[in-house]
């Protein structure tokens, strides 16, 4: 395998992704300048500039960060461990439930034998049916698979959670201060972002844990059955009100026992016809007339049924789930906003953020040690920049394009301004060219309102979910000539950052956060 190919396939484990998210969350509250200095010093700029694999670069970054910052490893470790402990608790609970349920089903007081039909229905038939359904799901295309495997459960949970959340929000909204409400919205946004970004992975992780719990449920049921058979005298029989002959039941039993009949045949792995007929319970006749041998012939069939229809399918699903977790990790898209920001930080100071400072040289944040302006790129994908038609009226379009071009180190010809009216974006978006970037402009001197929220969401709906949207804030025009400023006003910067977080779109980023 060639080196680029190897880099492209850089393997991420679940623990790595957890550590990566922890590292990004920690950096979220740091100053941009500090982060840029720190990350640029890691020495991955060459990889970024040569267009190296993002998976590999970010994996290297994570490795370095974990080396540099040991407490990060502890935090990530504790999250991973919590997941693992949750799985163990689920498995333990599954075992106990299985043990308890089977013990209850095997209760025998010498009056009436244990009803094989009831035990079989709950511990074998039901599980076998579930296994068949799940197996079918695995043969479906991925989208359908996730829809059927999790759809109903997720929709129900979402309905419950959304209802509860809205009620709580409405109730506490009256007693919370504006700042607290904003913080709550940010938390909800973070949750939405996490679901959107890691939803598929989390579903499969949950699937694996549930299969482990189900596996241990069967172990518990099997243990209870074997314990009851070995250490006590149990009688098994079958009964029905319907006019069913012993032959028919025997036929069904033989059918069910097919998977193991080659190993444990009739009379061992499942009862023969005479044993089936001899273990039929007719309540008015009592059990005194029934032979003990016939009454004990069923336990092997039940135990092997649990192994075959309970334990083995769960083992298979557990392995399939693990495989899906790995697939979800392989599919994980590092083109999201947080990773994009990180990639920018890995570049040395000659990045476009320095260009921004040069362009805004007269502004308060300009630094004397800024390197000279670099030539603007005149090739590559362009940037489509959406701007409300009403807002665009206040600016000279050429000046705006030039300023935006300087921000992205692109020639102004590569910046396309698209105007929209009434907050509707469907029509203006149209087809994006390959690798064309998308940005949306707002005034930074006004706090974000619902209309902004709807405009961003409308743009998202008109685009593919994984297309990165860059939110660009305009500063108050500077000087007598009212020059376009891309230095956002400090007054509302915190509010705009909070706004972006509260939307919870992992592919939305504040392009000029003003640090």
């Amino acid at each position, binding site marked *: 395998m060639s080196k680029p190919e190897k880099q492209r396939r850089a393997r991420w484990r679940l623990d790595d992704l957890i550590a990566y998210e922890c590292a990004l969350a920690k950096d979220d509250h740091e100053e941009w300048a500090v982060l840029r200095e720190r990350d640029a010093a890691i020495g991955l700029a060459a990889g970024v500039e040569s267009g190296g694999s993002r998976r590999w670069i970010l994996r290297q970054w994570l490795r370095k960060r974990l080396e540099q910052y040991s407490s990060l490893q502890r935090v990530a470790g504790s999250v991973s461990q919590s997941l693992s402990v949750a799985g163990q608790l689920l498995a333990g609970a599954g075992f106990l439930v299985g043990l308890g349920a089977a013990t209850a089903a095997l209760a025998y007081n010498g009056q009436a034998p244990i009803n094989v039909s009831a035990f079989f229905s709950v511990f074998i038939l039901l599980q076998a049916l579930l296994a068949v359904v799940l197996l079918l799901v695995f043969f479906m295309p991925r989208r359908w698979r996730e829809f059927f495997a999790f759809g109903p459960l997720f929709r129900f949970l979402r309905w419950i959670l959304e209802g509860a959340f809205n009620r709580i929000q409405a109730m506490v909204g009256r007693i919370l201060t504006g700042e607290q409400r*904003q913080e709550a919205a940010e938390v909800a946004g973070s949750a939405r972002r996490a679901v959107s970004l890691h939803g598929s992975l989390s579903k499969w992780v949950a699937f694996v844990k549930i299969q482990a719990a189900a596996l241990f449920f069967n172990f518990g049921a099997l243990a209870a059955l074997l314990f009851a058979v070995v250490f006590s005298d149990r009688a098994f029989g079958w009964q029905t009100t319907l006019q069913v002959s012993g032959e028919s039941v025997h036929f069904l039993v033989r059918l069910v026992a097919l998977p193991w009949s080659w190993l444990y045949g009739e009379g061992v792995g499942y009862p023969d016809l005479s044993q089936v007929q001899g273990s039929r319970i007719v309540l008015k006749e009592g059990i005194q007339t029934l032979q003990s041998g016939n009454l004990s012939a069923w336990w092997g069939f039940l135990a092997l049924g649990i192994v075959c229809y309970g334990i083995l399918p769960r083992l298979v699903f557990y392995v399939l789930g693990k495989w899906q977790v790995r697939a979800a990790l392989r599919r994980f898209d590092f083109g999201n906003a947080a990773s994009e920001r990180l990639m920018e930080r890995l570049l040395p100071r000659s990045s476009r953020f320095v260009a921004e400072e040069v362009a805004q040289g007269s502004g308060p944040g300009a630094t004397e040690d800024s390197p000279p302006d670099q030539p603007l790129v005149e090739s590559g994908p362009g940037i489509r920049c959406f701007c409300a038609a009403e807002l665009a009226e206040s600016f000279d379009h050429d000046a705006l394009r030039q300023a935006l071009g300087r921000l992205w180190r692109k020639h102004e010809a590569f910046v396309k301004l698209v105007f929209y009216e009434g907050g509707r974006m469907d029509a203006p978006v149209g087809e994006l060219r390959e690798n064309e970037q998308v940005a949306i402009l707002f005034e930074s001197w006004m706090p974000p309102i619902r209309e902004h929220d709807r405009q961003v969401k409308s743009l998202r709906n008109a685009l593919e979910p994984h297309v990165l949207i860059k939110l660009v804030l305009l500063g108050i025009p500077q000087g007598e000539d009212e020059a376009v400023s891309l230095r956002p006003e400090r007054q509302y910067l915190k509010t705009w950052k909070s706004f972006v977080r509260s939307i919870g779109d992992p592919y939305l980023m504040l392009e000029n956060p003003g640090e």
Partner: protein
Amino acid sequence: MKTIPIFAIIGHPNEGKSSIVATLAQDDSVAISSSPGETVQLQRFDLKAGHEAVIEFIDTPGFQNPQTTLAWFRKNEALGETRVQRFIETHRKDPDFHHDCELLRPLLQGAGLLYVVDASRPMTPVDVAEMEILRLTACPRMALINPKSGETRFLESWKTAFRQHFNSVRTFNAQTARYPDRIELLEALKSIDQDWEPALSRAIELLRLDRKRAVDRTAEAIVDYLEQALRCSCSSFLDKESGVELERRRLEDEYRKKLEKIERRFRDETRDIYGIRRVSVELPKNSILSEDLFSERTWQALGLNQKQLAIAGALLGAGIGAGADIAAAGITFGVFASIGAALGAGSALWKGKDLARVKISHLPLGGLKLTVGPNVSDRFPFIQLDRFLLYALFISNWAHARQETSVKLGGGEVKQGPSSAWKQDELKRVTRFVRAVRKGNGEEIEAAGRELRQLLAGVLS
């Protein structure tokens, strides 16, 4: 149903609507925050004169969908006067439009509109949409410029737009507005709708009366607490002389604490008079009122200047001499009074800022009596009076929107207290009261107190 004028304060989020309401309604229970979105429901605040509500101000959430709302208003032009009502009915169940419905709701009650903007930023299409919505409602309306910074670059463009959309435009800084500014704004409100003129005139009249009552109560409080400060003393008994020094220090400390308590009680009462109950009024760090009563800076900055002090000392001394003249049935032709005045003027000039004189008396049955206070310095009454007056002025001009300190009293050597500007006549009124208190004559205290109250009410008005 209320018949008083109602005004809804409307605008974009975080333009200072709640601050304006707090200052105009003189109510510090209005929730104010530097971050947007603090107000989510309509909140009504009455401006009261005494116990009577004279004007109602409604704090509203900021516009959240101005352009969509304007588009709806334009599309439904045919609805005419029912447009606001229909808009609310149509959107009331949509959580996205909750704020917009809330802020338009007062218009159904016939409220006047005060549209608040921070004119230190450029105008945007969103602002234009908001102004246009308000114009389409056809309600009486005024634009209020609440400048958050000193930037004036955009002021003209704002004013031009306001002229097109509003009946009247005023600048009103909620953070620094004093009592006269508030009255001036209320007067200006008359101009946006003639129908409100009688009600607003009556409201302003009642407010003025209420203000006068508050000033009189404050003057009364100052006189009461000044009397307490002038009388303040501490004493204790000792068996032997060995512990005198220690006891003296303890008594001085107790005396200082007693004076502090008097000031604290005065400040509480003053805040109560002006209805500042919920927010903590913190004096700026460099304020002279934050200094200790007996600190060097307080005695440098407050009280009388040298010339005034000589006059005051003479007035106080003359009082003592006059007592001797009266005792001699006037035969001395005021000789004692003249000698007393000369001595008083001299002593006032050199007497330092002693905490208070310590008096040690031997008791007939053995033991000692130690007394600290009252302070006999001629400067002390004026310094104490200045502290009371400065605090009362600070509180009486407190803008209820100002929830953090922003008023700074200057420092330096220059006398900053109101008493430093007083002429002989005013000084005479104060010294007469001081003399009466020192003498302990109830009738004289009452008469001199009445005169002093009149003087103080004039300063506070």
